Protein backbone atom coordinates (compact mmCIF):
# COMPACT_ATOMS: atom_id res chain seq x y z
CA UNK A 1 0.00 0.00 0.00
CA UNK A 2 1.06 3.55 -0.73
CA UNK A 3 2.74 5.74 1.89
CA UNK A 4 0.59 8.75 1.07
CA UNK A 5 -2.09 9.12 3.75
CA UNK A 6 -5.51 8.24 2.30
CA UNK A 7 -9.15 8.32 3.34
CA UNK A 8 -11.14 5.10 3.57
CA UNK A 9 -12.96 5.67 0.28
CA UNK A 10 -9.66 6.37 -1.50
CA UNK A 11 -8.19 3.11 -0.13
CA UNK A 12 -11.18 1.05 -1.28
CA UNK A 13 -11.21 2.62 -4.75
CA UNK A 14 -7.44 2.13 -5.13
CA UNK A 15 -7.78 -1.54 -4.18
CA UNK A 16 -10.71 -2.04 -6.58
CA UNK A 17 -8.85 -0.22 -9.37
CA UNK A 18 -5.75 -2.33 -8.79
CA UNK A 19 -3.47 0.64 -8.17
CA UNK A 20 -1.34 1.73 -5.22
CA UNK A 21 -3.07 5.04 -4.60
CA UNK A 22 -5.64 7.38 -6.09
CA UNK A 23 -6.28 11.11 -5.73
CA UNK A 24 -9.56 13.02 -5.72
CA UNK A 25 -10.62 14.02 -9.24
CA UNK A 26 -8.84 11.10 -10.91
CA UNK A 27 -11.01 8.88 -13.12
CA UNK A 28 -10.45 5.17 -12.55
CA UNK A 29 -12.07 1.89 -13.54
CA UNK A 30 -12.92 -0.40 -10.62
CA UNK A 31 -13.58 -4.12 -10.39
CA UNK A 32 -16.95 -4.67 -8.73
CA UNK A 33 -17.22 -7.08 -5.77
CA UNK A 34 -21.02 -7.04 -5.57
CA UNK A 35 -23.75 -5.75 -7.88
CA UNK A 36 -27.28 -5.39 -6.57
CA UNK A 37 -30.28 -4.92 -8.86
CA UNK A 38 -33.98 -4.63 -8.06
CA UNK A 39 -37.33 -5.40 -9.60
CA UNK A 40 -37.96 -1.72 -10.45
CA UNK A 41 -34.94 -0.79 -12.57
CA UNK A 42 -33.47 -4.30 -12.76
CA UNK A 43 -34.29 -7.22 -15.04
CA UNK A 44 -37.14 -5.38 -16.79
CA UNK A 45 -34.65 -2.81 -18.06
CA UNK A 46 -31.46 -4.91 -18.10
CA UNK A 47 -32.62 -8.20 -19.63
CA UNK A 48 -33.66 -6.70 -23.00
CA UNK A 49 -30.27 -4.98 -23.17
CA UNK A 50 -28.37 -8.20 -22.39
CA UNK A 51 -30.31 -9.86 -25.21
CA UNK A 52 -29.50 -6.95 -27.53
CA UNK A 53 -25.81 -7.29 -26.66
CA UNK A 54 -25.97 -11.08 -26.98
CA UNK A 55 -23.95 -11.66 -23.80
CA UNK A 56 -24.46 -13.15 -20.35
CA UNK A 57 -23.55 -11.77 -16.93
CA UNK A 58 -19.96 -11.52 -15.75
CA UNK A 59 -20.37 -13.44 -12.49
CA UNK A 60 -23.74 -14.75 -11.19
CA UNK A 61 -22.15 -15.31 -7.74
CA UNK A 62 -21.51 -11.59 -7.33
CA UNK A 63 -24.99 -10.46 -8.31
CA UNK A 64 -27.79 -9.96 -5.79
CA UNK A 65 -31.34 -9.50 -7.04
CA UNK A 66 -34.00 -8.13 -4.68
CA UNK A 67 -37.71 -7.85 -5.43
CA UNK A 68 -38.83 -5.05 -3.12
CA UNK A 69 -40.28 -2.10 -5.06
CA UNK A 70 -43.44 -3.62 -6.58
CA UNK A 71 -44.15 -6.13 -3.80
CA UNK A 72 -46.66 -7.51 -3.24
CA UNK A 73 -48.13 -6.94 -6.69
CA UNK A 74 -51.14 -4.62 -6.64
CA UNK A 75 -52.09 -4.90 -10.32
CA UNK A 76 -51.25 -7.05 -13.36
CA UNK A 77 -48.48 -4.68 -14.49
CA UNK A 78 -46.64 -5.04 -11.17
CA UNK A 79 -47.22 -8.79 -11.17
CA UNK A 80 -45.70 -9.02 -14.65
CA UNK A 81 -42.59 -7.09 -13.54
CA UNK A 82 -42.13 -9.47 -10.58
CA UNK A 83 -42.66 -12.53 -12.78
CA UNK A 84 -40.03 -11.26 -15.22
CA UNK A 85 -37.64 -10.67 -12.31
CA UNK A 86 -38.02 -14.31 -11.20
CA UNK A 87 -37.54 -15.57 -14.75
CA UNK A 88 -34.35 -13.51 -15.09
CA UNK A 89 -32.92 -14.99 -11.90
CA UNK A 90 -33.60 -18.53 -13.18
CA UNK A 91 -32.29 -17.80 -16.69
CA UNK A 92 -28.96 -16.38 -15.49
CA UNK A 93 -28.47 -18.66 -12.46
CA UNK A 94 -28.23 -15.69 -10.10
CA UNK A 95 -26.87 -16.98 -6.80
CA UNK A 96 -28.62 -14.58 -4.43
CA UNK A 97 -32.29 -13.71 -4.90
CA UNK A 98 -34.46 -12.19 -2.18
CA UNK A 99 -38.05 -12.26 -3.35
CA UNK A 100 -40.43 -10.31 -1.09
CA UNK A 101 -38.04 -10.60 1.86
CA UNK A 102 -37.82 -6.89 2.53
CA UNK A 103 -36.11 -3.76 1.21
CA UNK A 104 -32.77 -4.33 -0.53
CA UNK A 105 -30.66 -2.03 1.66
CA UNK A 106 -31.85 -3.87 4.77
CA UNK A 107 -31.80 -7.35 3.25
CA UNK A 108 -28.16 -7.07 2.05
CA UNK A 109 -26.60 -6.78 5.52
CA UNK A 110 -29.21 -9.10 7.08
CA UNK A 111 -27.78 -11.84 4.88
CA UNK A 112 -24.12 -10.98 5.47
CA UNK A 113 -23.34 -9.62 2.00
CA UNK A 114 -21.51 -6.48 3.18
CA UNK A 115 -17.97 -6.48 4.57
CA UNK A 116 -15.38 -3.76 5.11
CA UNK A 117 -13.26 -2.89 2.07
CA UNK A 118 -15.73 -4.14 -0.55
CA UNK A 119 -16.51 -2.13 -3.70
CA UNK A 120 -20.24 -2.49 -4.51
CA UNK A 121 -22.70 -1.02 -7.01
CA UNK A 122 -26.47 -0.86 -6.55
CA UNK A 123 -29.32 0.05 -8.84
CA UNK A 124 -30.89 2.39 -6.30
CA UNK A 125 -29.82 5.79 -5.00
CA UNK A 126 -29.92 4.73 -1.35
CA UNK A 127 -27.20 2.13 -2.00
CA UNK A 128 -25.01 4.52 0.02
CA UNK A 129 -26.64 2.76 3.00
CA UNK A 130 -24.01 -0.01 2.79
CA UNK A 131 -21.20 2.37 3.73
CA UNK A 132 -22.04 1.87 7.41
CA UNK A 133 -20.35 -1.51 6.96
CA UNK A 134 -17.07 0.10 5.88
CA UNK A 135 -17.55 -0.56 2.18
CA UNK A 136 -17.98 1.61 -0.90
CA UNK A 137 -21.44 1.34 -2.37
CA UNK A 138 -23.07 3.85 -4.67
CA UNK A 139 -26.23 4.02 -6.73
CA UNK A 140 -26.35 3.78 -10.52
CA UNK A 141 -29.10 3.77 -13.13
CA UNK A 142 -30.30 0.64 -14.91
CA UNK A 143 -28.28 1.28 -18.07
CA UNK A 144 -25.09 1.58 -16.09
CA UNK A 145 -25.94 -1.53 -14.03
CA UNK A 146 -26.28 -3.33 -17.38
CA UNK A 147 -22.66 -2.40 -18.04
CA UNK A 148 -21.64 -3.66 -14.59
CA UNK A 149 -23.45 -6.96 -15.08
CA UNK A 150 -21.73 -7.47 -18.44
CA UNK A 151 -18.20 -6.30 -17.62
CA UNK A 152 -17.90 -6.43 -13.81
CA UNK A 153 -16.43 -2.94 -14.02
CA UNK A 154 -17.48 0.66 -13.44
CA UNK A 155 -15.72 4.01 -13.88
CA UNK A 156 -15.74 6.53 -11.10
CA UNK A 157 -14.28 9.92 -10.37
CA UNK A 158 -12.39 9.54 -7.09
CA UNK A 159 -14.47 11.70 -4.74
CA UNK A 160 -13.22 14.27 -2.30
CA UNK A 161 -13.95 13.17 1.28
CA UNK A 162 -15.86 15.33 3.74
CA UNK A 163 -15.47 14.27 7.37
CA UNK A 164 -18.46 14.79 9.68
CA UNK A 165 -17.85 14.17 13.38
CA UNK A 166 -20.50 14.07 16.10
CA UNK A 167 -19.70 14.05 19.78
CA UNK A 168 -21.85 13.62 22.88
CA UNK A 169 -25.10 11.75 23.44
CA UNK A 170 -28.54 12.28 21.94
CA UNK A 171 -31.17 13.65 24.30
CA UNK A 172 -34.54 11.97 24.83
CA UNK A 173 -36.59 11.62 21.64
CA UNK A 174 -33.64 12.32 19.32
CA UNK A 175 -32.46 9.81 16.72
CA UNK A 176 -30.05 9.44 13.80
CA UNK A 177 -32.81 10.65 11.48
CA UNK A 178 -32.67 14.04 13.17
CA UNK A 179 -28.93 14.16 12.42
CA UNK A 180 -29.62 13.71 8.72
CA UNK A 181 -32.46 16.23 8.52
CA UNK A 182 -30.11 18.74 10.13
CA UNK A 183 -27.20 17.82 7.84
CA UNK A 184 -29.37 18.15 4.72
CA UNK A 185 -29.93 21.75 5.80
CA UNK A 186 -26.33 22.44 6.92
CA UNK A 187 -24.39 20.66 4.15
CA UNK A 188 -27.01 21.04 1.40
CA UNK A 189 -28.12 18.50 -1.16
CA UNK A 190 -25.54 19.36 -3.81
CA UNK A 191 -22.53 17.23 -2.78
CA UNK A 192 -22.14 15.30 -6.04
CA UNK A 193 -18.83 13.49 -6.48
CA UNK A 194 -18.04 13.77 -2.78
CA UNK A 195 -17.91 11.05 -0.13
CA UNK A 196 -19.09 11.69 3.41
CA UNK A 197 -17.20 9.96 6.23
CA UNK A 198 -18.94 9.96 9.60
CA UNK A 199 -17.12 9.60 12.90
CA UNK A 200 -16.85 10.75 16.47
CA UNK A 201 -17.93 9.18 19.74
CA UNK A 202 -21.64 9.66 18.99
CA UNK A 203 -21.38 7.60 15.80
CA UNK A 204 -19.20 4.94 17.44
CA UNK A 205 -21.84 4.63 20.16
CA UNK A 206 -24.69 4.00 17.72
CA UNK A 207 -25.98 0.52 16.85
CA UNK A 208 -25.82 -0.47 13.16
CA UNK A 209 -29.55 0.21 12.65
CA UNK A 210 -28.91 3.88 13.49
CA UNK A 211 -25.53 4.13 11.71
CA UNK A 212 -27.12 3.11 8.39
CA UNK A 213 -29.49 6.09 8.64
CA UNK A 214 -26.41 8.33 8.31
CA UNK A 215 -25.08 6.54 5.25
CA UNK A 216 -28.51 5.93 3.68
CA UNK A 217 -29.45 9.60 3.68
CA UNK A 218 -26.10 10.64 2.25
CA UNK A 219 -28.16 10.18 -0.91
CA UNK A 220 -30.16 13.22 0.23
CA UNK A 221 -26.89 15.14 0.54
CA UNK A 222 -26.27 14.25 -3.11
CA UNK A 223 -23.06 12.44 -2.17
CA UNK A 224 -21.38 9.71 -4.21
CA UNK A 225 -21.38 7.57 -1.11
CA UNK A 226 -20.85 7.70 2.66
CA UNK A 227 -18.79 5.52 4.93
CA UNK A 228 -18.22 4.74 8.58
CA UNK A 229 -14.93 3.15 9.61
CA UNK A 230 -15.62 -0.41 10.82
CA UNK A 231 -15.25 -1.29 14.49
CA UNK A 232 -16.31 -4.13 16.82
CA UNK A 233 -19.98 -3.12 16.44
CA UNK A 234 -19.66 -3.59 12.67
CA UNK A 235 -17.94 -6.96 13.02
CA UNK A 236 -20.52 -8.21 15.54
CA UNK A 237 -23.34 -7.31 13.11
CA UNK A 238 -21.61 -9.15 10.27
CA UNK A 239 -21.17 -12.23 12.47
CA UNK A 240 -24.79 -12.01 13.64
CA UNK A 241 -25.76 -12.19 9.96
CA UNK A 242 -23.91 -15.49 9.68
CA UNK A 243 -20.87 -14.15 7.82
CA UNK A 244 -17.23 -13.90 8.86
CA UNK A 245 -15.34 -10.64 8.37
CA UNK A 246 -11.85 -10.90 6.85
CA UNK A 247 -8.90 -10.85 9.25
CA UNK A 248 -7.92 -7.38 7.98
CA UNK A 249 -11.45 -5.94 8.32
CA UNK A 250 -10.53 -3.35 10.95
CA UNK A 251 -7.59 -2.06 8.90
CA UNK A 252 -10.09 -0.43 6.47
CA UNK A 253 -9.88 3.04 8.03
CA UNK A 254 -8.72 6.48 7.00
CA UNK A 255 -5.11 7.32 7.82
CA UNK A 256 -4.70 9.83 10.66
CA UNK A 257 -3.00 12.31 8.32
CA UNK A 258 -5.51 11.80 5.48
CA UNK A 259 -6.59 14.91 3.59
CA UNK A 260 -10.26 15.87 3.84
CA UNK A 261 -11.87 18.50 1.67
CA UNK A 262 -13.73 19.77 4.73
CA UNK A 263 -14.29 18.76 8.36
CA UNK A 264 -17.46 19.44 10.31
CA UNK A 265 -18.02 18.96 14.02
CA UNK A 266 -21.46 18.77 15.65
CA UNK A 267 -22.71 18.43 19.21
CA UNK A 268 -25.25 15.59 19.61
CA UNK A 269 -26.49 16.87 22.97
CA UNK A 270 -27.63 20.13 21.34
CA UNK A 271 -29.60 18.34 18.62
CA UNK A 272 -33.40 18.68 18.81
CA UNK A 273 -35.96 16.57 16.95
CA UNK A 274 -36.09 17.83 13.35
CA UNK A 275 -38.80 17.97 10.71
CA UNK A 276 -38.33 18.64 6.98
CA UNK A 277 -41.14 20.53 5.26
CA UNK A 278 -42.29 19.87 1.70
CA UNK A 279 -40.79 19.47 -0.84
CA UNK A 280 -37.19 18.69 0.06
CA UNK A 281 -35.24 17.14 2.94
CA UNK A 282 -33.08 20.25 3.38
CA UNK A 283 -36.19 22.28 4.21
CA UNK A 284 -35.75 21.34 7.85
CA UNK A 285 -35.98 22.89 11.28
CA UNK A 286 -36.76 21.99 14.90
CA UNK A 287 -39.98 19.96 15.32
CA UNK A 288 -40.99 22.41 18.06
CA UNK A 289 -41.23 25.21 15.44
CA UNK A 290 -43.53 23.07 13.31
CA UNK A 291 -45.66 22.24 16.36
CA UNK A 292 -46.42 25.94 16.78
CA UNK A 293 -47.80 26.03 13.21
CA UNK A 294 -50.56 23.47 14.01
CA UNK A 295 -50.05 21.35 10.88
CA UNK A 296 -52.80 18.73 10.75
CA UNK A 297 -51.81 15.34 9.24
CA UNK A 298 -54.04 12.94 7.31
CA UNK A 299 -51.46 10.19 7.36
CA UNK A 300 -48.47 9.16 9.44
CA UNK A 301 -46.23 6.66 7.67
CA UNK A 302 -43.51 4.46 9.14
CA UNK A 303 -41.67 2.75 6.32
CA UNK A 304 -38.70 2.56 3.92
CA UNK A 305 -35.12 1.32 4.17
CA UNK A 306 -34.23 4.25 6.40
CA UNK A 307 -37.21 4.35 8.75
CA UNK A 308 -38.77 0.95 9.51
CA UNK A 309 -35.98 -1.13 11.02
CA UNK A 310 -36.52 -2.88 14.36
CA UNK A 311 -35.08 0.05 16.32
CA UNK A 312 -37.42 2.40 14.43
CA UNK A 313 -40.44 0.26 15.33
CA UNK A 314 -39.24 0.29 18.94
CA UNK A 315 -39.24 4.10 18.88
CA UNK A 316 -42.80 4.05 17.52
CA UNK A 317 -43.98 1.61 20.20
CA UNK A 318 -42.32 3.67 22.94
CA UNK A 319 -44.49 6.65 21.92
CA UNK A 320 -47.68 4.67 21.26
CA UNK A 321 -47.75 2.53 24.42
CA UNK A 322 -51.01 3.29 26.24
CA UNK A 323 -52.05 5.86 23.63
CA UNK A 324 -54.31 5.99 20.55
CA UNK A 325 -53.83 7.39 17.07
CA UNK A 326 -55.90 10.59 16.73
CA UNK A 327 -59.29 10.47 15.04
CA UNK A 328 -59.00 11.68 11.46
CA UNK A 329 -55.37 10.56 11.20
CA UNK A 330 -54.27 7.15 9.92
CA UNK A 331 -50.99 5.51 10.98
CA UNK A 332 -49.51 2.96 8.61
CA UNK A 333 -46.46 0.85 9.40
CA UNK A 334 -44.58 -1.11 6.75
CA UNK A 335 -41.64 -2.93 8.44
CA UNK A 336 -38.47 -2.87 6.32
CA UNK A 337 -37.99 -6.65 6.12
CA UNK A 338 -39.71 -9.92 6.91
CA UNK A 339 -37.06 -10.65 9.54
CA UNK A 340 -37.80 -7.33 11.24
CA UNK A 341 -41.53 -8.07 11.01
CA UNK A 342 -40.97 -11.43 12.77
CA UNK A 343 -38.75 -9.91 15.46
CA UNK A 344 -41.24 -7.10 16.11
CA UNK A 345 -44.03 -9.67 16.34
CA UNK A 346 -42.07 -11.80 18.80
CA UNK A 347 -41.15 -8.94 21.15
CA UNK A 348 -44.67 -7.44 21.25
CA UNK A 349 -43.86 -4.28 19.27
CA UNK A 350 -46.43 -5.00 16.57
CA UNK A 351 -49.12 -5.62 19.19
CA UNK A 352 -48.41 -2.21 20.72
CA UNK A 353 -48.71 -0.56 17.31
CA UNK A 354 -51.96 -2.28 16.37
CA UNK A 355 -53.47 -1.72 19.84
CA UNK A 356 -52.92 2.01 19.32
CA UNK A 357 -54.83 1.85 16.04
CA UNK A 358 -51.86 1.55 13.67
CA UNK A 359 -52.34 -0.41 10.45
CA UNK A 360 -49.66 -2.94 9.49
CA UNK A 361 -48.62 -3.10 5.83
CA UNK A 362 -46.45 -5.64 4.05
CA UNK A 363 -42.68 -5.21 3.84
CA UNK A 364 -41.23 -3.44 0.81
CA UNK A 365 -40.67 0.05 -0.59
CA UNK A 366 -44.42 0.68 -0.75
CA UNK A 367 -45.77 4.18 -0.31
CA UNK A 368 -42.33 5.80 0.12
CA UNK A 369 -42.02 5.99 -3.67
CA UNK A 370 -45.77 5.89 -4.44
CA UNK A 371 -45.41 2.28 -5.58
CA UNK A 372 -47.35 0.32 -2.96
CA UNK A 373 -50.12 0.65 -0.40
CA UNK A 374 -50.55 3.95 1.43
CA UNK A 375 -50.51 6.48 -1.42
CA UNK A 376 -51.73 10.05 -0.80
CA UNK A 377 -54.70 11.82 -2.43
CA UNK A 378 -54.68 15.40 -3.77
CA UNK A 379 -54.01 17.98 -1.03
CA UNK A 380 -53.42 15.36 1.69
CA UNK A 381 -50.71 15.89 4.28
CA UNK A 382 -48.41 13.11 5.53
CA UNK A 383 -45.61 12.93 8.07
CA UNK A 384 -43.24 10.12 7.23
CA UNK A 385 -40.16 8.32 8.54
CA UNK A 386 -38.93 7.90 4.93
CA UNK A 387 -35.94 9.69 3.42
CA UNK A 388 -37.24 12.12 0.80
CA UNK A 389 -40.28 14.32 0.31
CA UNK A 390 -40.09 15.66 -3.22
CA UNK A 391 -43.34 16.85 -4.78
CA UNK A 392 -45.55 13.88 -5.69
CA UNK A 393 -43.11 11.44 -4.05
CA UNK A 394 -45.83 9.56 -2.14
CA UNK A 395 -48.79 10.14 -4.45
CA UNK A 396 -50.78 13.03 -5.90
CA UNK A 397 -48.90 16.13 -7.07
CA UNK A 398 -50.64 18.41 -4.59
CA UNK A 399 -50.00 16.15 -1.57
CA UNK A 400 -47.43 17.24 1.01
CA UNK A 401 -44.91 15.10 2.85
CA UNK A 402 -43.11 16.17 6.02
CA UNK A 403 -40.16 14.06 7.18
CA UNK A 404 -39.36 13.17 10.78
CA UNK A 405 -37.86 10.49 12.99
CA UNK A 406 -40.00 7.48 13.99
CA UNK A 407 -40.50 9.21 17.37
CA UNK A 408 -41.78 12.36 15.67
CA UNK A 409 -44.02 10.49 13.22
CA UNK A 410 -45.59 8.38 16.00
CA UNK A 411 -46.11 11.39 18.27
CA UNK A 412 -47.71 13.31 15.39
CA UNK A 413 -50.03 10.35 14.72
CA UNK A 414 -51.21 10.53 18.33
CA UNK A 415 -51.64 14.30 18.25
CA UNK A 416 -53.18 14.38 14.75
CA UNK A 417 -50.77 17.19 13.92
CA UNK A 418 -47.01 17.66 13.75
CA UNK A 419 -45.52 17.78 17.26
CA UNK A 420 -42.19 17.57 19.03
CA UNK A 421 -42.12 13.97 20.38
CA UNK A 422 -40.34 14.89 23.61
CA UNK A 423 -43.63 15.87 25.25
CA UNK A 424 -44.80 12.26 24.88
CA UNK A 425 -41.64 10.52 26.12
Amino acid at each position, binding site marked *: MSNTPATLVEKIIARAAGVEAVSPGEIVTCQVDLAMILDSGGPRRIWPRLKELGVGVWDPEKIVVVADH*FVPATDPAAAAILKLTREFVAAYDIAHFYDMQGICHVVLPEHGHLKPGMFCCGGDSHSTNAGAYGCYMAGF*GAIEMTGVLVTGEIWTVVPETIRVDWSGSFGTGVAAKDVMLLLARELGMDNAFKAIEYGGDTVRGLPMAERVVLTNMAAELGAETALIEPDEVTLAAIRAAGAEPAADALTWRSDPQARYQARHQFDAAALQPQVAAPHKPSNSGPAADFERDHIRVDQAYIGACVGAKLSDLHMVAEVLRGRQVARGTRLMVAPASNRIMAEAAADGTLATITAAGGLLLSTGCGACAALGAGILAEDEVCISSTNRNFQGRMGANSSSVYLGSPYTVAASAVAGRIVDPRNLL
Partner: protein
Amino acid sequence: MSVINGRVWKFGDEINTDVMAPGIYFKLPIEEAIKHCLEAVDPTFAPGVQPGDVVVAGRNFGVGSAREQAAMGFSGLQVGAILAVSFARIFYRNVLNLGVPALILPEAGEIAPGDQVRVDPVAGRVENLTQDKTYAVEPLPPHLMEMINAGGLMPYLKTRIAGEATHDSR
Protein backbone atom coordinates in the same frame (compact mmCIF):
# COMPACT_ATOMS: atom_id res chain seq x y z
CA MET B 1 -20.69 14.75 -32.24
CA SER B 2 -22.72 17.33 -34.08
CA VAL B 3 -23.51 20.81 -32.82
CA ILE B 4 -26.96 21.20 -31.22
CA ASN B 5 -29.13 24.13 -32.21
CA GLY B 6 -32.39 24.44 -30.32
CA ARG B 7 -34.93 26.39 -28.33
CA VAL B 8 -34.51 26.69 -24.57
CA TRP B 9 -36.78 25.17 -21.93
CA LYS B 10 -35.83 26.73 -18.62
CA PHE B 11 -36.04 25.14 -15.17
CA GLY B 12 -34.99 26.22 -11.68
CA ASP B 13 -32.80 24.81 -8.91
CA GLU B 14 -33.01 21.27 -7.47
CA ILE B 15 -35.40 19.84 -10.05
CA ASN B 16 -35.70 16.27 -8.75
CA THR B 17 -36.20 12.85 -10.29
CA ASP B 18 -39.66 12.44 -8.72
CA VAL B 19 -40.99 15.30 -10.84
CA MET B 20 -39.03 14.11 -13.89
CA ALA B 21 -40.46 10.58 -13.57
CA PRO B 22 -43.26 10.32 -10.98
CA GLY B 23 -43.48 6.94 -9.23
CA ILE B 24 -47.18 6.64 -10.00
CA TYR B 25 -46.29 6.18 -13.72
CA PHE B 26 -43.46 3.65 -13.14
CA LYS B 27 -45.33 0.68 -14.48
CA LEU B 28 -46.32 2.35 -17.76
CA PRO B 29 -44.30 1.51 -20.87
CA ILE B 30 -41.47 4.04 -21.09
CA GLU B 31 -42.90 5.82 -24.16
CA GLU B 32 -46.06 6.50 -22.14
CA ALA B 33 -44.27 7.37 -18.88
CA ILE B 34 -42.13 10.09 -20.47
CA LYS B 35 -45.26 12.03 -21.47
CA HIS B 36 -45.46 12.94 -17.75
CA CYS B 37 -41.87 14.19 -17.55
CA LEU B 38 -41.80 17.37 -15.40
CA GLU B 39 -45.60 17.79 -15.60
CA ALA B 40 -45.74 18.98 -11.98
CA VAL B 41 -43.28 21.78 -12.80
CA ASP B 42 -44.17 22.69 -16.40
CA PRO B 43 -47.09 20.76 -17.92
CA THR B 44 -46.30 22.26 -21.37
CA PHE B 45 -42.81 20.72 -21.50
CA ALA B 46 -43.45 17.09 -22.50
CA PRO B 47 -46.18 17.91 -25.05
CA GLY B 48 -44.33 20.94 -26.44
CA VAL B 49 -40.61 20.05 -26.52
CA GLN B 50 -39.21 19.55 -30.03
CA PRO B 51 -36.31 17.25 -31.00
CA GLY B 52 -33.06 19.18 -30.52
CA ASP B 53 -34.47 21.63 -27.98
CA VAL B 54 -32.15 22.44 -25.10
CA VAL B 55 -32.99 22.15 -21.40
CA VAL B 56 -31.37 24.80 -19.18
CA ALA B 57 -31.54 24.43 -15.39
CA GLY B 58 -30.14 25.66 -12.10
CA ARG B 59 -28.30 23.84 -9.33
CA ASN B 60 -28.38 20.08 -8.65
CA PHE B 61 -30.46 19.14 -11.69
CA GLY B 62 -31.76 15.56 -11.28
CA VAL B 63 -31.37 15.31 -7.50
CA GLY B 64 -32.89 12.16 -6.02
CA SER B 65 -33.34 8.66 -7.23
CA ALA B 66 -31.39 6.32 -9.53
CA ARG B 67 -34.50 5.85 -11.67
CA GLU B 68 -33.42 5.76 -15.27
CA GLN B 69 -36.87 6.92 -16.39
CA ALA B 70 -35.87 10.41 -15.20
CA ALA B 71 -33.07 10.55 -17.76
CA MET B 72 -35.13 8.68 -20.37
CA GLY B 73 -37.60 11.56 -20.33
CA PHE B 74 -34.92 13.72 -21.98
CA SER B 75 -33.47 11.08 -24.30
CA GLY B 76 -36.97 9.86 -25.24
CA LEU B 77 -38.22 13.37 -25.99
CA GLN B 78 -35.01 13.85 -28.02
CA VAL B 79 -33.69 16.80 -26.03
CA GLY B 80 -30.47 17.92 -27.75
CA ALA B 81 -28.48 18.87 -24.66
CA ILE B 82 -28.88 19.77 -21.02
CA LEU B 83 -27.08 22.77 -19.51
CA ALA B 84 -27.17 23.23 -15.75
CA VAL B 85 -25.31 25.09 -13.00
CA SER B 86 -24.67 21.64 -11.48
CA PHE B 87 -25.96 18.09 -11.85
CA ALA B 88 -26.86 15.37 -9.36
CA ARG B 89 -24.45 12.49 -9.74
CA ILE B 90 -26.61 9.51 -10.78
CA PHE B 91 -28.79 11.58 -13.11
CA TYR B 92 -25.68 13.02 -14.76
CA ARG B 93 -24.31 9.54 -15.41
CA ASN B 94 -27.69 8.30 -16.65
CA VAL B 95 -28.23 11.05 -19.25
CA LEU B 96 -24.68 10.69 -20.58
CA ASN B 97 -25.10 6.91 -20.77
CA LEU B 98 -28.25 7.50 -22.81
CA GLY B 99 -26.27 9.73 -25.19
CA VAL B 100 -27.57 13.16 -24.15
CA PRO B 101 -24.74 15.69 -23.65
CA ALA B 102 -24.93 17.27 -20.19
CA LEU B 103 -22.74 20.33 -19.68
CA ILE B 104 -22.05 22.42 -16.61
CA LEU B 105 -22.80 26.09 -17.27
CA PRO B 106 -22.43 28.35 -14.21
CA GLU B 107 -24.10 31.21 -16.15
CA ALA B 108 -27.24 29.13 -16.95
CA GLY B 109 -29.35 31.71 -15.08
CA GLU B 110 -28.66 34.31 -17.80
CA ILE B 111 -30.44 32.21 -20.44
CA ALA B 112 -34.18 32.87 -20.86
CA PRO B 113 -36.97 30.49 -21.80
CA GLY B 114 -37.45 30.38 -25.56
CA ASP B 115 -33.92 31.66 -26.34
CA GLN B 116 -32.26 30.02 -29.33
CA VAL B 117 -28.93 28.42 -28.33
CA ARG B 118 -26.15 26.62 -30.16
CA VAL B 119 -24.24 24.02 -28.11
CA ASP B 120 -20.93 22.49 -29.15
CA PRO B 121 -20.06 19.83 -26.52
CA VAL B 122 -16.72 18.95 -28.13
CA ALA B 123 -15.40 22.48 -28.40
CA GLY B 124 -17.01 23.36 -25.05
CA ARG B 125 -18.98 26.33 -26.35
CA VAL B 126 -22.52 27.58 -25.80
CA GLU B 127 -23.83 30.46 -27.93
CA ASN B 128 -27.03 32.26 -27.02
CA LEU B 129 -28.13 33.44 -30.47
CA THR B 130 -31.07 35.41 -29.05
CA GLN B 131 -28.97 37.39 -26.56
CA ASP B 132 -25.79 37.36 -28.66
CA LYS B 133 -23.66 35.95 -25.84
CA THR B 134 -21.08 33.16 -25.90
CA TYR B 135 -20.00 30.97 -22.98
CA ALA B 136 -17.04 28.63 -22.65
CA VAL B 137 -17.93 25.39 -20.87
CA GLU B 138 -15.74 22.53 -19.69
CA PRO B 139 -15.81 19.88 -22.44
CA LEU B 140 -16.66 16.36 -21.27
CA PRO B 141 -13.66 14.18 -20.30
CA PRO B 142 -12.30 12.01 -23.16
CA HIS B 143 -13.59 8.69 -21.72
CA LEU B 144 -17.14 10.10 -21.69
CA MET B 145 -16.84 11.72 -25.11
CA GLU B 146 -15.76 8.34 -26.48
CA MET B 147 -19.00 6.83 -25.14
CA ILE B 148 -21.23 9.72 -26.27
CA ASN B 149 -19.66 9.71 -29.72
CA ALA B 150 -20.53 6.02 -29.90
CA GLY B 151 -24.16 7.04 -29.15
CA GLY B 152 -24.27 6.10 -25.46
CA LEU B 153 -23.34 3.17 -23.25
CA MET B 154 -25.15 0.45 -25.23
CA PRO B 155 -23.45 1.14 -28.59
CA TYR B 156 -20.18 1.56 -26.67
CA LEU B 157 -20.62 -1.86 -25.01
CA LYS B 158 -21.42 -3.43 -28.39
CA THR B 159 -18.18 -2.09 -29.82
CA ARG B 160 -16.27 -3.30 -26.80
CA ILE B 161 -17.83 -6.79 -26.92
CA ALA B 162 -17.14 -7.03 -30.67
CA GLY B 163 -13.53 -6.01 -30.00
CA GLU B 164 -13.12 -8.69 -27.33
CA ALA B 165 -14.63 -11.34 -29.63
CA THR B 166 -12.12 -10.39 -32.34
CA HIS B 167 -9.34 -10.48 -29.79
CA ASP B 168 -10.42 -13.91 -28.47
CA SER B 169 -10.52 -15.44 -31.94
CA ARG B 170 -6.91 -14.50 -32.57
